């Protein structure tokens, strides 16, 4: 009826390719089904979004937020999150336990590999350690310290034989990597730009989703999920203390349904969170076998990230 | 009063009385317990050195400056406390303060409009006043398109058209050059006299004061030093300040010998000088005997006479100054004496020859030293 037609929820998430994909895969069918409109609020970076959301704490006009575990934890500390009523999520059972909690519901998994320019890079990159090759001096683009919630730092840690609670090796590797670092990007799109515009020849830590865009810039670009393992993580819904929580919950449930998950995954090359949903074949060439995937403990990282960032900057910055 | 009366110069001016007014800026007293009366239809010149409080006084009369003490009356009516726009005072500023965004006509009309004169009567009155000041031709020009003298006239017209009770002029001519100033002086006097408005003219140009005003008030550090006709002030200045401010003077420093028989005798390096007695001067008191350059004559032949002072001096210099020529002498004691002679009449004194200078006792003044 009329009342229903009026209903609208506001979803904060990434724009660009992601935004377009969500419109087709989710918003339109969802509105057809429930009559609830979904408005997308594009966000620059998750952390930027977090700051602005906290700023409007007492007059929150956003209902739902697709973000990462780190921001989720911080947002919860800031007290802007609602508990998600698991009972109302008919599709919840199809999610792995790791991907669902009081304040978060996983929406997709993404892996991080390397994108590079075949023509300018003198050798095919197969393993992470190739990034240290001196032939790549000044040619590697990497995310900044807190990019992807510091997962690149953790990755280097792993490569150096460390872990979340023993991160020192990361900085040793970073020191070796430094001469090769050409640019530090503050966001995905920036990373894409630097690679496609020839500012650097290699973009470390690149989700295949972005590679879709890179490929459009030319055939010379290549994507690999390097040896020995591939860092992966999931993004999640967070329910904000917004005006329209029930509708928002409805939408979460819809978005994690098999159908919706596959529709989206096809478009942005992610691994569906819903175990029922099939992995898109476009992703197949890049997707490593599950055993090579490694999921970091993001909540643990959140606590230590500031210190990591400081140490990281100390190693990387200045020249 | 109506246009007719004013323009026709019925001369029904208002008496202005400043009664013991004081004005302070912070703890600096710009006007100090000043009392001054201006007779109906009179033009009084307020003459004084820069910074002595002339403009401040004027502003007080206009109501642009609150007074801290005393009272100001127009006729019987007490006006201090009244806002400027309620006093019906006209003022011509040194800078003219014409409204740059209005034509001459609009400038003149402004006052009429503000005074609520019915529109249909504007044209008539504006024309009359523009004619009176010979600027009818400029009616549609803007202030920045006309000369200083013309702006002067417009400022005057703008003020007169509203027929103020009182007219204030703050150095109205100081912005003009000499030739023009000469013309405007007489012009202003004529116009104002014609309208018969009581006027107060501020200036630090003695000639202006003498030629335009009926009476002159010499002001010094916030006080009135002397008021009187130009002649009184020139010939009988009460203090050295006044004497110096209007015209030039020679001084022979010395001490009072004695007073009596209506005369005061002063001992100076150049000899004994006699002057009309000055009440309140005791024997031995250090004084200065002053006399104007133009009263000095050279008279080597003539015998000493009781009614004239006489000193020996030698001519040291002579400057032709047009109408008059100035001769500089030195007396015994190296005091310089200046004498003015008309340039055409030869002044009987040979260079560097000792000669006798003499001048009337009656034109000699004695001032207590350092007054």
């Amino acid at each position: 009826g009329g009342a229903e037609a009026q209903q609208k929820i506001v979803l904060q998430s990434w724009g660009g390719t992601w935004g377009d994909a969500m419109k087709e895969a989710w918003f339109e069918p969802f509105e057809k089904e429930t009559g609830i409109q979904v408005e997308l609020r594009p966000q620059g970076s998750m952390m930027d979004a977090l700051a602005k959301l906290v700023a409007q704490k007492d007059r929150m006009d956003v209902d739902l937020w697709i973000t990462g575990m780190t921001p989720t934890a911080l947002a919860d500390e800031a007290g802007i999150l609602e508990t998600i009523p698991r009972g109302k999520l008919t599709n919840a059972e199809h999610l792995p336990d790791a991907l669902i909690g009081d304040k978060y519901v996983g929406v997709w998994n993404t892996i991080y590999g390397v994108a590079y320019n075949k023509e300018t890079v003198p050798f095919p990159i197969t393993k992470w350690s190739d990034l240290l090759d001196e032939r790549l001096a000044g040619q590697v683009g990497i995310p900044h310290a807190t990019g992807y919630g510091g997962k690149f730092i953790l990755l280097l840690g792993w490569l150096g034989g460390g872990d979340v609670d023993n991160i020192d090796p990361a900085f040793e590797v970073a020191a070796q990597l430094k001469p090769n670092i050409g640019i530090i990007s503050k966001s995905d799109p920036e990373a894409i730009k630097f690679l496609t515009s020839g500012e650097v020849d290699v973009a470390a830590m690149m989700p295949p989703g972005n590679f879709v865009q890179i490929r459009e810039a030319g055939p010379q670009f290549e994507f690999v999920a390097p040896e020995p393992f591939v860092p992966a993580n999931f993004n999640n819904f967070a329910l904000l203390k917004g005006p329209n929580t029930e509708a928002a919950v409805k939408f979460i449930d819809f978005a994690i349904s098999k159908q919706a998950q596959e529709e989206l995954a096809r478009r942005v090359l992610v691994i569906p969170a819903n175990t029922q949903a099939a992995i898109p074949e476009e992703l197949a060439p890049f997707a490593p076998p599950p055993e090579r995937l490694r999921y970091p403990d993001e909540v643990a990282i959140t606590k230590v990230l500031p210190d990591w960032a400081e140490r990281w900057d100390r190693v990387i910055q200045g020249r | 009063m109506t246009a007719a009366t004013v323009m026709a110069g019925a001369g029904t001016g208002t008496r202005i009385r400043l009664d013991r007014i004081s004005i302070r800026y912070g703890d600096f007293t710009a006007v100090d317990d000043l009392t001054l009366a201006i007779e109906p239809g009179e033009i009084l010149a307020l003459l004084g050195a820069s910074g002595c409080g002339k403009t401040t006084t004027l502003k007080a009369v206009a109501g642009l400056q609150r007074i801290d003490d005393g009272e100001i009356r127009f006729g019987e009516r007490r006006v201090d406390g009244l806002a400027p726009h309620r006093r019906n005072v006209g003022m011509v500023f040194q800078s003219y303060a014409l409204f740059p965004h209005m034509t001459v006509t609009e400038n003149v009309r402004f006052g009429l409009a503000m005074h609520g004169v019915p529109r249909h009567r504007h044209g008539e009155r504006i024309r009359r006043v523009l004619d009176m000041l010979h600027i009818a031709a400029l009616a549609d020009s803007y202030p920045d398109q006309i000369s200083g003298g013309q702006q002067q006239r417009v400022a005057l017209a703008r003020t007169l058209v509203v027929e103020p009770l009182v007219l204030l002029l703050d150095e109205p001519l100081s912005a003009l050059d000499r030739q023009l100033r000469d013309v405007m002086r007489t012009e202003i006097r004529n116009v104002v006299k014609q309208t018969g408005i009581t006027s107060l003219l501020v200036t630090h140009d003695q000639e202006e004061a003498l030629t335009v005003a009926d009476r002159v008030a010499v002001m010094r550090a916030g006080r009135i030093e002397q008021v009187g006709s130009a002649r009184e002030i020139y010939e009988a200045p009460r203090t050295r300040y006044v004497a110096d401010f209007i015209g030039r003077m020679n001084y022979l420093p010395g001490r009072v010998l004695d007073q009596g028989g209506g005369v005061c005798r002063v001992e100076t390096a150049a000899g004994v000088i006699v002057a009309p007695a000055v009440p309140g001067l005791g024997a031995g008191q250090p004084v200065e005997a002053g006399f104007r350059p133009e009263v000095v004559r050279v008279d080597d032949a003539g015998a000493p006479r009781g009614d004239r002072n006489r000193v020996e001096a030698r001519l040291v210099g002579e400057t032709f100054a047009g109408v008059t020529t100035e001769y500089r002498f030195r007396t015994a004691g190296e005091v310089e004496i200046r004498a003015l002679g008309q340039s055409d009449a030869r002044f009987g004194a040979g260079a560097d020859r000792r000669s006798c200078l003499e001048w009337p006792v009656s034109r000699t003044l004695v001032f207590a030293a350092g007054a």
Partner: protein
Amino acid sequence: MTLDQALPGPAGDTVRRRPGRRPNPVPYLLVLPALLLVAGLVGALLVLSLRSLEGAQGQVPSLAQYARIATSPHYLDHFTHSAWLAGAATLAAAVLGYPVAYYMERVGRPMRRAIMAFLAVVFFSDYVLRMFGLILVLGKTGIVNRLLVWSGAVDRPLSLMYNDFGVFVGLVSASLPFMILAINGVLARLDPRLPEAAALLGASPPRVFWHVTLPLSVPGIVSGGIIVFLLSLNSFVTPALLGGGFVEMVATFIYEQAINLFNLPLGAAAAMILFFVSMVLLVGVNGLFDRMGRRFGVREEGR
């Protein structure tokens, strides 16, 4: 436009207040709206300072954050590095700007106005876009590198950007208009008789410049310098766009801490420090000038 010009001279001659008299309410009513607006800023700064006093977990007020910054050489680097870059940029701007400012006074009025107009256009055009222009000039694929490679001077494009140099260039080019206009402002007000008088006293043109023109234009250099220095010290856009993540200056550091690390207390503390540094600099320089301004022909404020 210079800061000292931001503050006008003594008031017009209508003094409306005198001891023993009730202060006139009019001026206070007039300034009320503006003060209300400014109250917003003052309030915000207070909140900021409060926030900066929070501990790590944000309980009892403490100077913990300031202590952290003071004790971390890395954090301090951001300040010193910014100061260093700003200083260099200011110096360069002065050295490059003076000839232009001086030249503008020697050419005819049309040319002078033309240059003035050009500077104004630069000044009125968007800061972000000016940085973009530099990217086009300095980037790996920018015209400079294209020229170098094309001319064979180098075989691989140089890194002219995304490092201190890039930021430095950015700061200088952003500063130049301010500096030129500030210096020219003083030179234009310089009494042309002074150089003439110097020449007639036997000073050759170089000496006239050295002994008269230059000393008398110091006020311009200083007022231009201080504003340029502060703008550079606080600049965010330039390091963000031309620093490539390597050049962290205070502003970007504050952003990183407050936004990307959501570490508001630390960011707030850094901001407070930056605030005080700026204020101290301003007050300091003005104070210095009040004392020794005479040497450069700065008149004492008359009563």
